[in-house]
């Protein structure tokens, strides 16, 4: 398919120099000047190298996209990343997929669409999320081809409904947590954006973002309170069993903390905390909260800090003065004091 497109354009090349269609061409391709810069040499490569057209779908796309750099504005005015790192793609869990498995249909795109028809369910899903993914909603919906069950969970979650019902564009969907679909690695891999090591930061992109917190009236201290908690400290030190965000809040089917079905709602915590803390009871479960400390712990801490400073002042002044007086005695009062 791609080769075909390239051939058409190379056949058109002489015209560019002889006719005024050159200007027309430039006008149409204006946003793709950068692309043109790469295309001619790559065309030669593509023609010289014997490529197995059908089996090497992704190789064909990567022939250009692996060496393209930077972002480009589409006709619709959206910025898209041109580069696909072919090494990282080959190392990802999706390396066996062909580009067109997900990029089934192009809207707002210079390439002509692949021929295969898009399944109806993907199309309707893509319509729901089109506002979030204006460039290629079909590809964003295509995750459900393989991950259908999980995708359904996400759509009914607080994150999913924010996009499908409230039509917001800043809510989380697949890529916001997992990163580019081209480079997804297993969750056990520390490179994964949802791995234990990176999950806090990934959720924190939104849950630590002031504007988003204000917009959605989210709990405002979640990141700091986690980092200061025993869980967060131990995670930082490399503890391998300590919980991260999804351990308590769930991942794909995440719910608002005010939703009675949420694992962190009310006494649901008995079970949630009980996963690690055997025998977790109603008096224990308030131990972990993302709220700021109440007045009692707050003022106790202030009082204790005063106590520490007071004791410290006494100790330091006593030790220093005593040392000085000992030195003084040793020099000036030799033998005077027994």
């Amino acid at each position, binding site marked *: 398919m791609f080769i075909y497109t390239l051939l058409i354009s190379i056949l058109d090349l002489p015209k560019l120099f002889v006719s005024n269609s050159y200007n027309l061409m430039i006008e149409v391709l204006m946003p793709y000047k950068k692309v043109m810069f790469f295309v001619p040499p790559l065309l030669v490569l593509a023609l010289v190298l014997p490529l197995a057209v059908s089996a090497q779908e992704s190789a064909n796309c990567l022939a250009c996209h692996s060496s393209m750099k930077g972002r480009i504005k589409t006709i619709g005015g959206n910025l898209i990343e041109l580069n696909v790192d072919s090494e990282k793609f080959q190392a990802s869990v999706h390396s066996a997929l062909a580009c067109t498995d997900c990029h089934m249909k192009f809207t707002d795109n210079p390439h002509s669409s692949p021929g295969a028809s898009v399944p109806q369910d993907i199309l309707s899903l893509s319509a729901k999320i089109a506002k979030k993914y204006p460039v290629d909603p079909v590809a964003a919906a295509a995750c459900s081809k393989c991950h259908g069950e999980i995708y359904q969970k996400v759509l009914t979650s607080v994150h999913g409904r924010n996009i499908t019902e409230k039509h917001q564009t800043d809510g989380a969907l697949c890529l916001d947590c997992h990163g580019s679909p081209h480079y997804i690695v297993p969750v056990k891999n520390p490179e994964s954006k949802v791995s234990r090591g990176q999950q806090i930061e990934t959720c924190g992109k939104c849950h630590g973002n002031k504007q988003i917190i204000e917009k959605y009236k989210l709990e405002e201290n979640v990141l700091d309170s986690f980092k200061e908690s025993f869980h967060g400290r131990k995670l930082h*030190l*490399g503890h391998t069993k300590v919980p991260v965000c999804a351990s308590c809040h769930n991942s794909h089917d995440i719910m608002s903390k005010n939703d009675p079905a949420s694992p962190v709602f009310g006494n649901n915590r008995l079970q949630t905390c009980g996963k690690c803390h055997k025998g977790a009871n109603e008096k224990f479960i308030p131990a972990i909260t993302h709220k700021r400390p109440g007045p009692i*712990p707050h003022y106790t801490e202030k009082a204790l800090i005063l106590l520490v400073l007071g004791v410290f002042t006494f100790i330091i002044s006593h030790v220093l003065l005593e040392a000085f007086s000992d030195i003084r005695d040793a020099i000036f009062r030799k033998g005077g004091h027994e």
Partner: protein
Amino acid sequence: MSQTNTTTAREIPKEIERFNVTFRIQHILMFTTFLLLSFTGWGLKYADAPAGVSSWWIRVWGGPETAGIIHRVAGVTMLLDFIWHVIYLGYLFATKQMTINLKTTVIPLPKDIFDVIQNFLYFFGLSKEKARFGKYSYAQKFDYWAVFWGMFIIGFSGFALAFPMLVSHIIPRFATAWIWELLSIMHSDEALLAIVFILFWHFYNEHLKPENFPMSWLWITGKISTEKLKHHHPIEYDLLFPDAKKNKD
């Protein structure tokens, strides 16, 4: 702790026993567990120290899991050591091996405050006399009672944090919303106080002071030379050897 059997022996011994073997073992248990708790707890308190220092430090102690076990075992051992000490004191009182004498007691008295003032006057050159102590100087009393304070504040909160389900039964319902936060603040802040206290107060007085450097060997021998006793604890010395005083006079 005050053995008040006033010796009437004419000959003054070279040294006398200040702490018996039980006290010495209690002290050894106390400081080994204290060091273990400080080392492992420090890494957790300052987990996000720059450049991953704390992660490295905790790896030295076998990683977070192992360090956690060390911390809990040491904490329980320290609490048991403390309970043993209190029971032992009760036993000494019950069997009259120990009685309260104002000159030898470790109980803080108004005199200690005057001693502090007296010593500060001396440090500033406003007085030619240092304070005269009984068996325990105010510095030593401070050292001793600091452990009690630490045991109640850090010990109890630590126990509650290590065995929350067990302790949750005695926590009143109205307190559950803030008690856990309070416990961890108490534990962490008072532990810092304890470490600072030991590092500056105890280490200076018992290790760094020129007369004690590198350490006072009392912790292992339990004995103090009468010479040193006379110098540092004159009131106790006079009490133990009244004859010496008379002779001197």
